[in-house]
């Protein structure tokens, strides 16, 4: 699904990504963690075709983002820090607009389905401006899922979600994985999230310093600290 070779992204003098190699198969759940400024968002944005790589090879669903951006965008859903929703439109209008752009089949039905799934039906004719943060987040997720994407990229999706909402998101992700969707998400939240088998990548200063499958979470938080401390002391011993 995702193939990355020696990906470098520079912003002027600063290297946000300094040579990342990564392969992700379809149906995988991947957690991308790391300190702020590690390059997680940059990586996600490059996969979403919002940003061009400075050098290196990137393939998403077999396509090159610099050449076949539209093909890639057809198949992905992206959740950003910002909601990407239009404040001055209603929930339904927001979904309708994006459904049109993505050429979602059975548009009305799909929109109704998602509204129901995320408990937004009752507010569908209200302006997004009037929604709480949590509701906006839910609508944003619904928007990302409109075209039933094969790859879901979520940038800090647990941010601002209360524990129940976060659990619901986890269930959602589990269901999507079961359906063959690939999910790649970034998060800082390592404590107390329920156990799901996932592949964990640790990114620091533009380098991928850890790549393995982990299950439960207290060890994950500990492991994370360990790995980071090691990388900061420039310890080149592989874990």
């Amino acid at each position, binding site marked *: 699904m995702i193939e990355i070779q020696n990906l470098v992204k520079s912003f002027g003098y600063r290297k946000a990504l300094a040579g990342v190699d990564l392969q992700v198969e379809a149906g995988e759940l991947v957690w991308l963690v790391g300190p702020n400024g590690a390059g997680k968002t940059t990586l996600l944005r490059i996969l979403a075709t919002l940003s061009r790589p400075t050098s290196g090879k990137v393939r998403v669903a077999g396509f090159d983002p610099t050449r076949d951006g539209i093909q890639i965008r057809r198949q992905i859903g992206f959740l950003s820090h910002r909601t990407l929703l239009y*404040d*001055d439109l209603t929930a339904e209008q927001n979904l309708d607009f994006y459904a049109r*752009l*993505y*050429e979602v089949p059975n548009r009305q039905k799909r929109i109704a389905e998602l509204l129901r799934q995320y408990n937004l039906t009752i507010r569908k004719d209200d302006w997004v401006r009037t929604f709480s943060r949590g509701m906006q987040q839910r609508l944003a997720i619904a928007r990302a899922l409109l075209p039933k994407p094969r790859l879901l990229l979520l940038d800090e999706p647990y941010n601002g979600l209360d524990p129940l909402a976060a659990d619901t998101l986890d269930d959602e992700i589990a269901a999507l994985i079961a359906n063959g969707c690939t999910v790649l998400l970034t998060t800082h939240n390592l404590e107390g999230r329920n156990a799901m088998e996932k592949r964990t990548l640790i990114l620091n200063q533009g380098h991928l310093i850890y790549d393995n499958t982990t299950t439960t979470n207290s060890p994950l938080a500990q492991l994370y600290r360990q790995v980071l401390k090691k990388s900061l002391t420039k310890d080149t011993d592989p874990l």
Partner: protein
Amino acid sequence: MSYLRQIWAIVKKDITAELHTRETTSAMFVFAALSMLIFSFALDLQGRAAKAVAPGALWTTIVFAGTLGLNRAMAREQQTGSIEGLLLAPIDRTAIFFGKALGNLILMLAVEVILLPLGSALFNVAFLKPSVTFPIVLGTIGYATIGTLIAAIAINTRAREVMLPLLLIPLAIPLLIAAVQATGNLVQGATLHTVNGWIQLLIIYDLLSIAIALLTFQYVAEE
């Protein structure tokens, strides 16, 4: 989805949002009306002198009201980050541009619908003659096109609102000269045939702005 449908979806979305709040259009209307009033008072000319000044006053107003509209439209998009929503959709980048530009054009034309009669009354000139509206529309098309491109740039800078007129107006000089001259001559009774040169310049400018936007918008939008 066909290219034209994509553009239309974006335009419809912008117009719907604007109809909900009417923030931008009301600001533009009020500003434009005030501007014409101020020109009328400040210049305090009668008869022929007023006629000579009217086209300039009209276009100055269109430029500044247009700048106001362009700024607000882009700012709104940037607030919620929804320009990224468009960039994430499986549509051509240029379709995004044309959708936004067309939306901005419609806003400007809507303001002109009020502005032209007002100007005609205040300065006692025939702005509403069909031949006169022709260069006005052509000029507005050019301004909205290049303006949308520049607004997309300006909104990302530190001085945001100030940056747009600073960047845009020097670019729009040929457009302004041609538009004012054409409007002025036609209002004084010339025929479209006599102002042919200016009309051609306007059309060339419009085509040039569209070409530049088509070629460069992707570099503005994408990182």
